């Protein structure tokens, strides 16, 4: 698709992602400027979903790299397929092959296990690369990522440098468990994804759980927004709101009274202390 602000807006709508003008603008920029997009915000505000939607919108593949502490190049970039190399050597044992031929053979692309970063770079068409929860990876890995993200090239000592054929759309997400380095931030466009307001959340519920009647939908959105203001240990995510809406439909609840809320609160709140904190406020939240 040709990238224009309107096309991005339409694409997001078609991919069933409801969002704000800000997100549309920044996403459009990331696509046009071909810069990585760093998405920060509270857990459950739809950061990962955004990447999936972008892939759907562009009609392309999503390559996901989930970060964790201890993630290294072998798992992020490439690894030699040791077993396959060994098999090759076994097969070649009786044939007369020179050392040069052999080494050129076992260190060729066929014997390379491509991990997400390399796969995104060598992909023949533009893909979406999601580097999820980059704040969980070590600082060393972040530094390594810089190199990949600034030039979109990877060097494999045995093969030489591999350049990206089509620059992937890179989306990084962070929950701010730690500060990311300034250098990484500098290279990215920045987007802060906040929980949606009541109106937006109502639209999302309408889209994803159409069975919930309209009045109840508004009450659900308001109640969840109220919960998020309580400063809980883990504020309910959008996915949890949708789960709750589905639960209400499944239980045939027509009225959001205190009892109904109490019975289903476990869908929204996953920590005992949060439940204790929210329970006395149920009446007040409902009235809002």
């Amino acid at each position: 698709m040709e990238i224009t602000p309107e096309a991005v807006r339409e694409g997001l709508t078609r991919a069933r992602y409801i969002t704000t003008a800000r997100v549309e603008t920044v996403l459009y920029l990331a696509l046009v400027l071909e810069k990585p997009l760093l998405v920060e915000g509270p857990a459950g505000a739809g950061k990962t979903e955004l990447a999936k939607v972008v892939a759907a919108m562009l009609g392309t593949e999503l390559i996901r790299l989930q970060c964790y502490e201890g993630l290294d190049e072998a798992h992020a970039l490439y690894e030699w397929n040791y077993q396959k190399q060994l098999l090759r050597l076994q097969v070649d044992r009786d044939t007369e092959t020179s050392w040069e031929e052999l080494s050129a053979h076992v260190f060729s692309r066929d014997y390379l296990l491509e991990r997400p970063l390399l796969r995104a770079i060598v992909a023949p068409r533009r893909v979406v690369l999601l580097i999820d929860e980059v704040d969980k990876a070590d600082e060393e890995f972040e530094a390594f990522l810089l190199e990949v993200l600034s030039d979109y090239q990877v060097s494999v000592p045995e093969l030489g440098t591999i350049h990206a054929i089509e620059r992937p759309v890179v989306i990084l997400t962070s929950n701010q468990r730690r500060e990311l380095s300034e250098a990484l931030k500098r290279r990215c466009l920045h987007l802060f994804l906040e929980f949606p307001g009541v109106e937006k959340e109502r639209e999302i519920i309408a889209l994803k759980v159409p069975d919930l009647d309209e009045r109840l939908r508004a009450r659900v959105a308001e109640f969840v927004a109220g919960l998020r203001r309580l400063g809980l240990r883990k504020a309910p995510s959008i996915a949890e709101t949708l789960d709750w809406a589905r639960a209400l439909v499944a239980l045939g609840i027509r009225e959001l009274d205190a009892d109904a809320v109490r019975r289903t609160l476990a869908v929204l709140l996953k920590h005992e202390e949060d439940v204790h904190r929210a329970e006395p406020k149920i009446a007040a939240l409902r009235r809002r």
Partner: protein
Amino acid sequence: MKDRLAALIGALRARGVPVSVAEAIDAATAAAAVGIERVALADALAAALVKDEGDRALFDECFARVFRARAAASAAARRRRSRTSAQEGGDAGAALSHGGGSGTRGRDSPVSAVSTSAAATAPRRSPAGVSEAPPSSTSHAPASVGREVGGAAGAAKNDEAVRGASFAACDDAGAPSRRSMARARALRALPFDAMSPRDVDEATVLVRALAQQVSVRLRRRLRPRPRWRLDFRRTLRAATPHGGVPLVRYFRGRRPRPPALVALCDLSASTATASDFFLALLAPAAAWFARVRLFGFVDRLVEIEFVDGRVRPAARLDLMARSDFGRVLADLTTEVATDLTADTVLLVLGDARNNRRPPRADLLRLARARVRRVVWLNPEPLRRWDSGDSVIGLYARHVDVLVPCGSIAELAAAVAAMVRR
């Protein structure tokens, strides 16, 4: 446009937001890509220039000041208001009615919204780049807005300020998490000696979360590393079914031996906050050390316990006494000598203000010879080191690592560095 952009970047830099040249170029490209529609332009420039959501309010303020074309602005404001009402309906509405009473979006409602947002806007950076806490008694009168923007009192300036801040009001109304994030960031950078009791309370919660991270990190470091050395025997045995071809390799890693910890904390009034937070950071990680002994000191060394966020000394400790590091070191090398072993990390938190008493740096050298590492954390700002009665320079020669720990951020970095080997 170029001039405006330069002015905007200048304004941001003046307020302490770091903007690199590359980001400035990005901003220009971004502006060219989105055009001059005001809201989109603001979002685009913010995405390129502001990498810390805590600075967004500041950006909006600067943006409004630089791009002040009046007609366009009022038109955009009208559009923005209608957009915001559709978007963040409940939240924005709540904030507006909180200030304006009726909640109608009339001519004057943004002004009243501003007064609340000005009070609520998270701590901003001063030109020096140091975060400062919001004044606890920000008045809710619109007059405070003028002060927010830099002491402008004229009607025109005030109007402009209102516009700038109403931008922030629209965005911040529905963003409790963003505000708390900005607050957390400010707290992390706030020097201990500038903390009010309320700051300390809030920081305690923050430190608890950080302590959890330190603990997790330490546990990971102490996990056996499998990829170290080929486990020859196991690899060969696994190769037998494949005719001796080692298809699967097994590796053996030695479990890193956890260090023992001896920590000395200065409990005198000047460093008490730093000590408390330090102990709070260390407490959950204690399980991952082979042995932990915590000591507090002012003029002598006393073993302490850290329970439920409180320091509990084993013997009486005079907190009002004058610090005497020399005597503390003498206590250390005599009474605690058996605990200073080759796998011990000796941690000292103190400002090394010795009240002109003998510093006894030779004892520290002695202690260092017996332990694996000596790490000294100094809660004083760097520029005050070695001033007056501080003898940190004498001790610095006999420690492996000397780091400042004047704020939570520095403290966390110091503890993380200590955990890393």
